[in-house]
């Protein structure tokens, strides 16, 4: 058990469901979620931690899943974008706000933004534009020019009762 190995047994809770899997040590958490659990909402942009598209919640805090390795998920609780819906088939207020405020176009960066915004608004209330932009500065979007995203965060702040 204490010998280093290339295959590791892990036990992880993702979006409320428990999974036990045998994973390659070098498989990233992002690839584990996408390939082993079919949770393809988590996206791969840069694969070195700078674009934010792969952002998930790990034990309640945002993390870049592309620079996490699957063995590091053992014993952890993960939430992906698929886990944001309050009830199956519904939308979280943040998702509704993004829809209303044109906070996405191609949608590739959006899951990462949603989880970053979730963590941010969980703690901050009525943030101003400068603070919102600062909080989002770790997530890159090629399509929107960010204004729609900033508007969506303000709207989500109003809509989401936390």
């Amino acid at each position, binding site marked *: 058990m204490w010998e*280093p190995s*290339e295959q590791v047994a892990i036990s992880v809770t993702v979006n409320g469901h428990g999974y036990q899997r045998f994973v390659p*040590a070098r498989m990233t958490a992002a690839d584990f979620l996408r390939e082993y659990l079919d949770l393809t909402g988590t996206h791969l942009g840069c694969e070195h931690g700078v674009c934010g598209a792969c952002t998930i919640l790990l034990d309640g805090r945002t993390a870049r899943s592309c620079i996490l390795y699957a063995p590091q998920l053992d014993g952890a609780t993960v939430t992906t974008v698929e886990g944001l819906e309050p009830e199956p088939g519904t939308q979280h207020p943040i998702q509704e706000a993004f829809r209303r405020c044109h906070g996405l176009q191609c949608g590739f960066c959006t899951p990462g933004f949603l989880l*970053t915004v979730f963590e941010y608004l969980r703690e901050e209330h009525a943030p101003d534009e400068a603070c919102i932009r600062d*909080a989002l500065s*770790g997530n890159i979007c090629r399509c929107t020019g960010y204004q729609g995203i900033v508007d969506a965060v303000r709207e989500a702040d109003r809509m989401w009762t936390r």
Partner: protein
Amino acid sequence: MKPMPFRYVAPSDLEAALVAMHDHGDEVKALAGGQSLGPLLNLRLASPSVLVDLRRVDELAGEPVIDGEFVRIGAMTTDADVERSGVVATECPLLAEALPFVAHRTIRNRGTVGGSLAHADPAAEVPAVAMAAGAELLVRSVRGSRTIPVQEFFTGYFTTTLAPDELLVDVRFPRGGRNSGSAWAEFAPRNGDFAIVGVAVMLQIDADGAISSANVVCAGVADRPWCATAAASALLGQPPGQDLFAEAAALASRDCTPQDDLMASAGYRKQLVALLTSRALAGAAARLEER
């Protein structure tokens, strides 16, 4: 990109971790928060055969605590936890001020103070702050333990005096006294980007209001945190003041020897050193007045 294959182990205590580090010689890397090592692995700039994950080694983490004249911070304590620590805010305000500049919230949720020190990026905030504060690093291996003053720790680009089988266990920052003021100033192209230049200043004044000790340390101008010794010397024995600070900033700019690179020319970095040193000195003086 994906990393080269490696073997992985997550020992459950420090002794087991030290044995693992020793048993695998030069082929092993310790995995702390992974926010610097992960990119290196994924880009295949590093390809260790064995990764020793420190996540289960409880002795290395925990809340920053007061330890005599120091604040002790476990090597695996995340930047986010240090940022939120009331002890650090009160006793090590320089560290508390610099940490929000480290990347982004998501990175700070996992990145660790110990990891930043061991990684030794010359543009990083934590190494420069540790130098300015005169921190001490406690290091262990199966062969024993030693305390390394931070001034001896950084030896080059991404290089420290850590032996391949050694682990940084904790860092002790001297507590800022009543007569001290500190500040951090940096410039990065966008919020959260690597600093092009960062400056840490620690000042102490005596009963007569003269500066009795000064540290001015720059990130991003050398292969390790760089001490602007002439600038610091010029401050000694003088009361804080704008003219004095301008003189010190000019000395720091004169003496640093940055390289041209993709992000900035050497000349631009020198200009930034002058500007940010002035800014940080003014900030430190303002903190002195608040005390």
